[in-house]
């Protein structure tokens, strides 16, 4: 059933409960005091939008992927985009099986992958960017890579602080990648001990306070850990909407005294390893957890979020107690769930969707529509959370509402093209400067790149509502529009065209396109567009788009004397037009 019906039902219930007066859009566009509908009204009722029926009239579970087109569409949302091989393999099987297989795939080991190709002396942050792209373009473990990229936008660091720490930055990617299907609490611990985060949020060498001089501990990590990594600023309902106090106002999760108290916890860390010098890139210092020196750790009582850690508690014990207390906060599940959904499937997820995913996070279980149960039963299981996000009924329903959907991230727009057409093998990692070393420039790049966010607030904010847009007028959050806008449109087109049209001799030889499988199709414009429609937008191309692309392709005649050149021109035109369409740049 499409979301239009669901939404209408909800409003009616709200009205019946006398809540309509409270149903005013907030600044974040959500409805206040939205009454969650009882599960019975959520049941599929509209026949035109019900589940598909097989020839014998039996219900086919939504999770069954029947066609290559549906497989391609699913891989755009849940993975990194189809290839001929992956969509063929997935068609006729089940999205549930796919997720199970994906969850079983091992991590990448970025640090080792980098070390096998570039010496410690030569490794820089640029190769980590190249390696991350290479991984996303080539990996079979696309759900993990997608999750890792999502987590890198939640636990944000910026690589410009670590130009010479290539191995250290690769180890940071491993921190995210190894925990991508692990437990959120473990991830919090690994992040807190990472020297990369220690430098980025300035708590490496953070000293205890000094009553005599008035020196106080650095509050940076304490504040951002709460605001950005775990609980956020305001108390949340299990569906991610704001709780409101008796005065109708949002309820802050913490105040400054909590920050001052928690800041004492994150004192005492120094670099471990043989070297303690920031600039010594030949040491393994940056690949190892920071080391706690108790004499530098605050011995004072630490009070925050209703928890008190007694005075004279040793450093590592304080860290564990503090992270436990934060992790227990009821906000963590909806806070993390909503942001991960935004990275995968929906720019402004329905509260009911957030609730379902948060429940999976909270309980450590998720039951798919064929009864398959995912999970460890441990709160904070990120594998279960990923399964709940991509197997949610709102994702696999065929009938979609305009409100559902997402502006796709520019990095993922590029990665999908490259997965489909990059010449194998892909070796993007080089000490030479290449475009994939740095893609975050607005006028010459994608406005985005792995580990390239300008600040800990990521490329965009989860609550961003784009001024002067249709989604903005409707009050919908659309974080990605913070970087996908008038100012970045030409940079994106030029970046994509540079790769689409690359020929041997290009200054950047990494990720060359290989169109050998479709050159013959270029002779037949409708067949070419059919194929690209299937592969790149899951057969969802609108008729007007198709007509326009076919017309432009047709305008280039294929001359007998220049068959390859002219066919290639046709492919360049078709691809360039597709990658700027609504169908390609958004998911629905």
């Amino acid at each position, binding site marked *: 059933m499409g979301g239009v019906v669901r939404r209408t039902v909800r409003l009616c219930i709200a009205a019946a409960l006398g809540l309509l007066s409270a149903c005013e859009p907030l*600044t974040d*566009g959500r409805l206040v005091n939205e009454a969650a509908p009882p599960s019975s009204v959520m049941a599929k009722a509209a026949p035109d939008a019900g589940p598909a029926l097989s020839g014998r009239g039996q219900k086919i579970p939504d999770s069954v992927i029947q066609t290559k087109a549906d497989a391609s569409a699913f891989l755009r949302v849940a993975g990194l985009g189809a290839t001929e091989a992956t969509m063929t393999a997935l068609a006729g099987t089940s999205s549930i099986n796919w997720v199970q297989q994906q969850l079983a795939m091992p991590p990448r080991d970025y640090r080792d992958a980098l070390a096998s190709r570039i010496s410690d002396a030569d490794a820089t942050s640029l190769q980590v960017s190249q390696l991350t792209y290479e991984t996303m373009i080539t990996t079979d473990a696309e759900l993990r890579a997608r999750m890792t990229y999502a987590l890198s936008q939640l636990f944000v660091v910026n690589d410009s602080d670590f130009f010479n720490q290539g191995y250290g930055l690769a180890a940071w990617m491993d921190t995210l990648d190894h925990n991508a299907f692990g437990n959120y609490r473990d991830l919090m611990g690994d992040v807190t001990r990472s020297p990369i985060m220690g430098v980025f949020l*300035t708590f490496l060498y*953070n000293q205890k306070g000094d009553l005599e001089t*008035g*020196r*106080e501990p*650095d*509050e940076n990590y304490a*504040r951002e850990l709460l605001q950005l990594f775990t609980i956020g*600023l305001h108390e949340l309902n299990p569906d991610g909407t704001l709780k409101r106090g008796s005065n109708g106002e*949002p309820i802050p999760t913490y105040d*400054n005294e909590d920050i001052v108290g928690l800041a004492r916890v994150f004192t005492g860390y120094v670099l471990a390893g043989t070297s303690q010098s920031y600039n010594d890139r030949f040491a393994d210092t940056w690949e190892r957890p920071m080391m706690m020196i108790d004499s530098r750790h605050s011995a004072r009582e630490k009070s925050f979020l209703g928890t008190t850690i007694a005075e004279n508690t040793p450093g590592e014990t304080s860290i564990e107690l503090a992270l436990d207390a934060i992790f227990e906060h009821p906000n963590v599940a909806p806070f993390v769930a909503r942001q991960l959904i935004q990275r995968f499937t929906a720019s402004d997820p329905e509260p009911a969707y957030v609730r379902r995913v948060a429940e999976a996070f909270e309980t450590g279980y998720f039951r798919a529509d064929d009864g398959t149960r995912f999970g460890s039963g441990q709160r904070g299981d990120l594998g279960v959370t990923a399964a709940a996000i991509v197997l949610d009924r709102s994702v696999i329903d065929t009938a979609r509402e305009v409100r559902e*959907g997402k*502006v796709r991230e520019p990095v993922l727009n590029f990665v999908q093209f490259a997965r489909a057409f990059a010449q194998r093998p892909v070796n993007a990692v080089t000490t030479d400067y290449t475009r994939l070393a740095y893609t975050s420039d*607005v*006028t010459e790049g994608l406005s985005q790149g792995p580990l390239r966010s*300008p*600040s800990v*607030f990521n490329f965009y*904010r989860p*609550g961003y509502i*784009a*001024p*002067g*847009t*249709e*989604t*903005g007028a409707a009050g919908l959050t659309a974080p990605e529009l*913070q970087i996908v*806008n*008038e*100012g970045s*449109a*030409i*940079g994106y*087109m*030029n970046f994509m*065209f540079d790769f689409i*049209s690359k020929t041997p001799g290009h200054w950047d030889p990494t990720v060359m396109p290989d169109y050998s499988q479709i050159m013959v199709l270029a002779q037949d414009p409708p067949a070419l567009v059919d194929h690209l429609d299937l592969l790149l937008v899951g057969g969802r191309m609108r008729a*007007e*788009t198709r007509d*326009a692309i076919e*017309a*432009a*392709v047709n*305008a280039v*005649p294929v*001359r007998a004397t220049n068959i390859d050149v*002219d066919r290639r*021109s046709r492919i*360049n*035109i078709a691809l360039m*037009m597709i990658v*700027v*369409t*609504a*169908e390609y740049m*958004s998911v*629905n």
Partner: protein
Amino acid sequence: MAYYNRRLFLQGSAAGFLGAAGALSSLCAPRAHAASSNGYKALVGIFLKGGADMWDALLPYDAPSHAALSQLRPGIIGSHSGASSRAISNLLPLSVSNSASYENRQYALAPELSAIYPLFQNGEAAVVGNVGPLIMPTDRQGLISGTHAVPDNLFSHNDQQSMWMAMETEGARTGWGGQFADQTLSVAAKPEFAALSVSSLDVFLSGQSARPFRIPASLNGLDVNVLSQTWRSSGNSGRAARELVEAFLLDSPGLSNNMFGRDVVRARERGIEHMRDFLDVFADQVLLQTTFPETGLGRQLALIANTINKRAAIGNSRQVFYASIGGFDTHDSQANDLPGLLAQISDAVASFRDAMTGIGLWDDVTVFTMSDFGRTLSDNGDGTDHGWGNPHFVFGGSVLGGQHYGGLPALDPASDRFTADRARLIPDVSVDQYAATLGRWFGLDDDELLATLPNLSRFEHRDLGFLGGGAV
């Protein structure tokens, strides 16, 4: 100094009550509506991202005040150690006519601001002290008792950036720069160039109708490379293909059934169209000869200066510009990191001033700083943490220099101008007042300002006076 008077506030009238802004003229000059003003005026906002510690740019100069700051910041002023750049002897003192309004405390600039020091000395620049987002005037007691409304999510970067730009926390859709530009659209020859950014398209420049244009980093423009292809075809067919692609990029047929997809397509269509209009303006390739520093902000202000120089070709009599520079979240290494950033601002603004003076426009341009928040006056070893109120700088030929504006309280954390912990300054004047002063000079009238700046009505002075306007 007098601050908030609750009784007067509750009466709904604070007329006649001299507030925090110090000595203000009582003259009230009538102002023209922005839309009907003649001549050219531009506002240039520079956002210092991360929360700039402007109390390490403007420093106390008299010995007792300087000693008070040194005592609060042993790690910072101390770590400039030995020959500290913040030693009194290194500072650039500001002489002003209204020290008496600040209990005769003296202030000075950090030495790396030497390039803009002459502007302060010549009366082309001024300090506006202790500005920050406020809902209403308040003090420590007001915060503790909870009787005063204060902005949500204080000390949070993204929310306070948004408060500065738009008087709302994250999720705001209209900023005051864009709303000022809104008032000029009806007479703008090219409405798409009423609000211009040389940085990201932040909410500051988004109005109800006005939308920010992002000036390309190279004024030679940004070509859409796919459209310069000939497709290596014979005859006219290549051109036909190019025209079909061009038509598609500029106006894609039909509408996506997805709202997010529609927004993306419109952004691309407008992006190309406006870029082409902009390149037409620079078709003669004539650029200013002023040398700007090869820094991020230097390049940004050069773009703004060159765009202002093309005001006749654009045909708008009012423009709002936005630049930004990051790196100010100095939780550590402040003594090492901040001076370079301050020098970058100083050198870029000085060049910008030279460029404007060179074309006779310095009286028609006002440059002002903004930042997430000020920082704790007490240090954390070698840095500072998130605060609230902050001094800011304004520059321009119309700035009435030679005096300070706003509040410059004694740096005594025990006073009611500070929060109870970590010596965070509570603002004396609101962003609304700061913006209103700029807006009035730009040409907005009182009604327009009150409609744009939601908290303005709760403050007695709607003009801080630094642009020569009287107290309103």
